[in-house]
């Protein structure tokens, strides 16, 4: 006679050791249960396991994305302050401070770009997790619905109905989030610290709009300063290229080498003797003709960096103006309330 589970547990609690046929019988029962669970367990149970796994994955992805967004906001705030510093440095007339401000702003906006990329990655992961969870929920609902069609007791039917209702609600939540994420194109969100407070009246909203407009004016000023710097760099680059072309035109066919002169000593090399760098050193270094670790950034690279910075500041300016307009509109609306 096989030993039942309750009896087995009571024997163990009492410290009695079951005889080997009883132990064998217990294992056989357990094995049969496991096999049956694997073979004939309802599909809904497996689907619910999948839902649990996907729910965990989804929560992890959402936590990561929220952290990335918070970091992005912090980076944007730092970049915004760096942009304002360009304007202040330009107003102060301190050229060194202005150059430092450019470098600082470039670094801060690079940080924003990096963080932006990170947030985009976590956003993609979150989207994938949402879709996987949606698929798992749909599968569960289908399995539970099929199970509900089979004859069963009142209590079991009530449990199934509760489960179906809960999974259906969750599916609707996920579908709503998916619809929202489809509309969202990972927008650059500027000036995070200036937001509409539900307690704000028209006066507060207009003040915030003015503050934003001032930020936009500062961004305008920063863009103008960047444009001036770009103009100067473009002029310098033209000059460097002109010198490089000029020297290359003489050197290439040995026109600077005098009759029977040493090929190693041509006129252009003599022209460089005035300095270890030479008047065309930046041009030559940029061309790779004379290797130098100074300057670290060539005119072309600096122009590229400044163009990227300008694009970012311009984007920031547009965002601030849009936000200011929104605040004014809300202020107008509340006045009419």
């Amino acid at each position, binding site marked *: 006679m096989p030993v039942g589970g309750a009896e087995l547990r009571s024997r163990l609690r009492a410290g009695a050791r079951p005889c080997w046929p009883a132990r064998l019988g217990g294992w056989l029962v357990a094995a049969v249960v496991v096999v049956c669970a694997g073979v004939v367990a309802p599909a809904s149970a497996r689907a619910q396991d999948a839902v649990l796994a996907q729910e965990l994955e989804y929560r992890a992805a959402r936590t990561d994305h929220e952290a990335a967004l918070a970091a992005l906001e912090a980076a944007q705030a730092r970049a915004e302050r760096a942009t304002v510093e360009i304007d202040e440095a330009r107003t102060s007339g301190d050229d060194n401070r202005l150059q430092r401000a450019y470098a600082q702003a470039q670094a801060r906006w690079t940080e924003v770009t990096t963080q932006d990329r990170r947030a985009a990655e976590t956003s993609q992961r979150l989207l994938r997790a949402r879709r996987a969870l949606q698929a798992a929920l749909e599968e569960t609902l289908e399995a539970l619905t099929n199970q509900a069609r089979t004859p069963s007791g009142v209590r079991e039917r009530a449990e199934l109905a509760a489960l179906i209702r809960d999974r259906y609600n969750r599916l609707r939540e996920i579908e709503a989030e998916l619809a929202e994420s489809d509309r969202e194109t990972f927008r650059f969100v500027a000036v995070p610290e200036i937001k509409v407070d539900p307690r704000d009246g028209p006066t507060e909203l207009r003040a915030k709009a003015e503050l934003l407009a001032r930020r936009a004016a500062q961004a305008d000023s920063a863009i103008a300063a960047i444009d001036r710097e770009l103009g100067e760099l473009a002029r310098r680059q033209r000059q460097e290229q002109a010198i490089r072309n000029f020297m290359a035109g003489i050197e290439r066919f040995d026109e600077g080498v*005098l009759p029977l002169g040493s090929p190693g000593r041509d006129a252009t090399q*003599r022209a460089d*003797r005035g300095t270890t760098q030479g008047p065309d050193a930046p041009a030559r270094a940029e061309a790779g003709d004379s290797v130098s670790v100074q300057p670290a950034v060539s005119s072309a690279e600096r122009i590229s960096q400044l163009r990227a910075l300008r694009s970012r500041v311009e984007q920031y300016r547009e965002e601030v103006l849009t936000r200011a307009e929104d605040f004014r509109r809300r202020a107008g609306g509340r006045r009419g309330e």
Partner: protein
Amino acid sequence: MRRRVWRSLARAGAVAALLCSSAQHAEAQAVVRDLVLTGGFSVESYQGRLPAVTVPIVDSTDRAGAAIGQVGGSGSIVIHATPESELTFFADAGLRQFAAQGFQLADYAPRELVGTSQLGYARQLSGIGAVDVTARFRGRRVEDRPPMPLFIEPGYGSARGSARVRFLPVSAVRFDAALVGEVVNYSPPGVAPHLDLLDRRLLSAEAGAEWGGEGYSLRFYSGYSSSSYTRQSSFDPQDPYRHDQAVRVGAGVRTQSMPFLASLGIEGALNRSNSRRPEYNAVIATTLVSAPLPMEFNVEFLAVLTAKSYLQQTPFARLVPGEEADNASLVFLSLSRPLNAELSAAVRVGWTRAETEIGNAYFQRYGATVFLHYRPGL
């Protein structure tokens, strides 16, 4: 000989290209920098019916002209770059085709083919300064070389290695030292085997001190060079091959106060040899100026003026092959302007007054060139 030179240059180029390629794959951070393609058309005039030992043919004309078309390109690849170091490969190549006019004996159509490759490594040395090390290979081939006065530098292959250390400033003075080694192998055609006499080896050292900052600098320098002409006789049985030693002392000032760039230099050279014939003293003044003009024009000016006096007077050809014809002057003036973001144009005029093998005998060259420079992807 010529084949050997070209083969060695081709091998050097292939090694450099392979190095670049493998480095690109290894680090995937190679950056092509300043790729420039150039086309040009020149009109040149040459005056002076003078003999030249290196040119086997003699023509009776004392005035010749040439229409010249040229194409060329250059660019560099930054193979590896960190804030402390940089490895760069630079290449330059060009083809120039002449259509010569004015010769009595024949119509000449000389063609020049040139190529340069350079591998450079620069590194900051903690507590010392910075060091630049370069290896440069250059090849040049000339076909249908005409007689004087249309002088074209003969073909050669050269390998040059250099190292320069720029020390950290000491009391606002920046010291530097450089070492250069060079081997030049001329590639004579069958009719002018004596061009081999130009083969030479050079070893030189230079030290300098520089004052100034971003806007201007003043540099004094001194150098010593030793040249061996292993195929050239000194006419001294005890020391049969020519060996020169030269000492140079110079100063240069550079201004870089934007938008004006200028470099002015003066150098004195004393050349002494175990052959008395090429011993001389020389003074060389150099000017290089670049300045922007209205409407995005830019002007560049280069002038090298030389005065030389020989220690010994000789009745025969003084500058036999292997001699340095430093007693020459040249002036180039260029006006350039960008046409669009990738294309720029320049007009250059040039003048050269140079000494031939006969001491104190000069020929002159006048030329005007129109260039188009294309920089893709700017």
